[in-house]
């Protein structure tokens, strides 16, 4: 299995290689053909340098005398699931913000967010979500005069 120390450089190696492929396909304008420095020059330099650094890092890790690491760093499943929940919630909030408007989407985002984080006290769930969204909306729209989307579905 891929060692944790190798995972990062390997991911970067894949990313930098993809970047290099795209960098070599950057179209050059006719006048750039004989130029020494074009819009593709630095991307190519970055890609090449990045790949070298990744290979050095992989080489250094492989050459390093291995030692059994303790499993102290293993993530707890419940925490990983909670993080996934929050990421999905953020995506849903981003998608819902314009169609259903700031007030409803933010209130729901905060409420569900607190719930995902393990908060079960009704007082905190309600008081820290709807009033916060309303106060923020009031401050932005009424005090600072900043436009906040009311919801494309109803307007």
């Amino acid at each position, binding site marked *: 299995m891929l060692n944790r120390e190798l*995972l*990062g*450089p390997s*991911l970067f190696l894949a*990313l*930098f290689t993809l*970047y290099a492929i*795209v960098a070599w396909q*950057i*179209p*050059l*304008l006719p006048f750039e053909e004989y*130029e*020494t*420095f*074009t*819009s*593709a020059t*630095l*991307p190519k330099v*970055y*890609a090449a*340098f*990045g790949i070298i*650094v990744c290979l*050095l*890092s992989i080489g*250094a890790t492989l*050459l*390093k*005398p*291995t*030692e059994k690491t303790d499993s102290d760093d293993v*993530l707890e499943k419940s*925490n990983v699931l*909670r*993080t996934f929940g*929050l*990421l999905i919630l*953020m*995506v849903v*909030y*981003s*998608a819902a*913000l*314009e169609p259903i408007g700031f007030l409803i989407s*933010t209130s729901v*985002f*905060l409420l569900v*967010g*607190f719930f995902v*984080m*393990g*908060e079960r006290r009704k007082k*905190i769930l309600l008081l*820290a979500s709807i009033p*916060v969204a309303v106060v923020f909306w009031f401050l*932005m729209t009424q005090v*600072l005069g*900043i436009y906040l989307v009311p919801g494309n579905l109803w307007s």
Partner: protein
Amino acid sequence: MFDGIMLGLSTVLDWNNLLYVIVGCFVGTFIGMLPGLGPITAIALMIPITYSIGADSGMILMAGVYYGAIFGGSTSSILINAPGVAGTVASSFDGYPLAKQGHAGKALAIAAYSSFIGGTVGAILLMVAAPLLAKVSLSFQSPDYVVLMFLGLTAIAAFSNKGQFLKAMMMTVFGLMLATVGIDPSSGTERFTFSQADLLDGISFLLVAMATFALAEALINVVRPEKKEIKSINDSDTPQIGSTKLTKAEIKEMAPTVGRSSILGFIIGVLPGAGATIASFMAYATERNLAPKALKDKFGKGSLRGLAAPESANNAACTGSFVPLLTLGIPGSGTTAIMLGALIAYGIQPGPMLMQENPSVFWSVIVSMYFGNIVLLILNLPLIPYFAKVLAMPKSVLTIMILFFSLIGVYLVSFNTFDLFMMVGFAVVALVLRLLAFPMAPLLLGFILGDMIERNFRRSMMISDGSLSFLWERPLTLSIFVISLLVLLFPLKDFITQRRADKAAVKAKQEHA
């Protein structure tokens, strides 16, 4: 210089700006106290607000937040041994033992006074050093900027934690690559846009800063919560604040330490890539070495010098890190990189011309630092017991609030939901990289400097007719270039030493088995 100081004073003494200094210090202290959240996150969260208040006030607010966050970090280091900021880790070595002995108030007062003096010495040195360096840097040309930025990028990687040099380099390259997304400003060619209209303008700096710091910071605390249970200030076994008074003998004992550490901190802060963390550790180590035998033994057990040294050094270093930012336009740390991004967003190019083109921004930032120190001393110190209540805030509420403010902060600037999706994507990448122990600051620095490097590099190549000879034609360029190469090779020594030590350790273990 006198005119400049007067200009800075008149800007800062405007009621609105004074209010921004106070609010900045309060908000910074509040966020800095939360374990895991540092000045970069605090400033990133403030950026959307600063966009609506103008450059002078925005920079003043951010400088206040920076100071406040460092001070807040010291408070949580001392009270609950959970530093909110890497720069205050050294403060917990003696601050927490002092608090455990029932001298939490005294420890907080030492932190506040040392920070005040460190910050003040830093501000005075900045007032002297910045204009001088700005004058010198007026003679800098494009090639000098290319090598200076190269030095900035290599230095931040070289000064990263032990064994992280290659990781920091990968992150720097990743940041530089992200900066190439969008239309090339010189030729108009589309690069890495994948036919997405939303990417034509490139990736927003605010989005990257928020995703990699605020969002990733909040999420990492969810996926890998602090093992140490953070106790609220109201818990019975958490130290009570107590008296904040210091005796004459105690002041006399600490005075030379504070003076030395302030100057040391400032010098280290000026170096690109070093910053408050290295400054505080170096000051701590220096003071321990200089202390007489009896006092040396007290280090780590509640030494007053042991607390005063890192506190004065980290604040002086924060001020010092503004020197390269204001005079050369090159940030020396993640925090100043964010400020550089904010300045560019205002349409202001930091660098040698800043002092002439935008003197009010230049001088008001410097003067506001001094005011920030006064605010921290006069207002924050007496309010610490109340601030400390923030440590009792439910984590569930805090995390979701950070996520909300980050998302809405970016949305309020761009009004584009594509940015929000991209931000979540970046947060996922940043989270994975954080779990794999990759440092984030080099990415941000690479991203912010990427555009400037390309512009100056292109100009240099044009001047030298497509040849790289600009790197060695002028003595100044050559000197900075050589220094950058030395900095780049510096971690190699550590790597070889570490490998030898690792090999020896494994061999010893095998023999033992």
